[in-house]
C-alpha cells in the first residue's frame, strides 16, 4: 500500500481550496539506472476528488508531473465539517484514497 497523502481543505467565501501532497516516485520511463538499464515508467495516471459523496474533480496525469506530486484546486461550495476525499491510481494499478475534513 502506498504512503498516505497530505491534504488540506480550507473553505473561504464559498470556495474550498484543496491542496494535496502525494507520495509517489513519478518515474518517467526515460531514466537509466547505474547499470544503464531503463527504469520502467511508474506514475500516477488518474486523480479524482469527492466533496462528501459526490465526485467533483477528475484529472489524468502523465510522467511530466513532478515526483511527490503537489496539486491544488478549488471547489465551488463546501463548508467546515464537509469531507474531501482524494483518490489516485497509478499505471501499475496501485491506488490510494485519503480523506480530510474541510476547515
Amino acid at each position: 500500500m502506498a504512503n498516505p497523502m497530505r491534504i488540506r481543505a480550507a473553505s473561504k467565501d464559498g470556495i474550498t481550496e484543496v491542496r494535496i501532497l502525494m507520495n509517489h516516485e513519478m518515474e518517467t520511463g526515460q531514466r537509466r539506472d547505474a547499470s544503464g538499464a531503463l527504469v520502467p515508467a511508474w506514475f500516477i495516471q488518474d486523480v479524482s476528488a469527492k466533496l462528501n459523496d459526490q465526485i467533483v474533480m477528475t484529472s489524468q496525469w502523465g510522467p511530466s508531473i513532478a515526483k511527490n506530486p503537489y496539486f491544488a484546486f478549488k471547489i465551488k461550495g463546501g463548508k467546515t465539517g464537509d469531507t474531501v476525499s482524494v483518490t489516485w491510481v497509478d499505471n501499475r494499478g496501485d491506488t490510494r484514497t485519503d480523506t480530510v475534513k474541510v476547515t
Partner: protein
Amino acid sequence: MGEMNRRQALRAGGLFTAFVAAGLLPAGWARAAWNKAAFEGKSIQEALGALGATAPGDSDAVQIIASDIAENGAVVPVQIVSRVPGTTQIVLFVEKNPNVLAGVFDVGPDIVADVTTRIKMMQTSNVVAVVKADGKFLAATKEIKVTLGGCGG
C-alpha cells in the same frame, strides 16, 4: 427508495450520464479515461489531435502563472487559470519534454478553472496551457528557462 440507494442510483445513472453528455468525461469513464495516445504524443499538435482538439487560438483569458526561471527542472511550480466562460477542460503541455502532455484537468461544474501543480522540465521550454470552452480551444504559452535539467525526476 432509501437515501443510500438514491445516491447510488444518481451516481451510477444521472450524474454519470450528465457528465458524459456535457463532454466532461469521455464515454467509458471509469479508470479508462487515461488517453494513451495523447500522453505518448511527441509534439503538442500530435497530442492535441489525440485529445480531439482543434488548433487553439491564443487568448489573454488563459493565464500561466510561473517563474520565468526554474532553478530545478525536476520541480517547477505552475498554476493555470482560465477566465474563459464555459471552460470544461485545462490541458498542460511542456513542449520540449519527450512526451509533451503533462496533465488533463477536467473542469466540472463544481470546480474553479484554476489548478496548480509542479512539473518536470528536461530543458528550457515553452509551457502551453490549452483550455476547452464551448467546444473551442484557446491557448496560452510561457517560456520557462531551466538552469538545471529535471529528467532524473
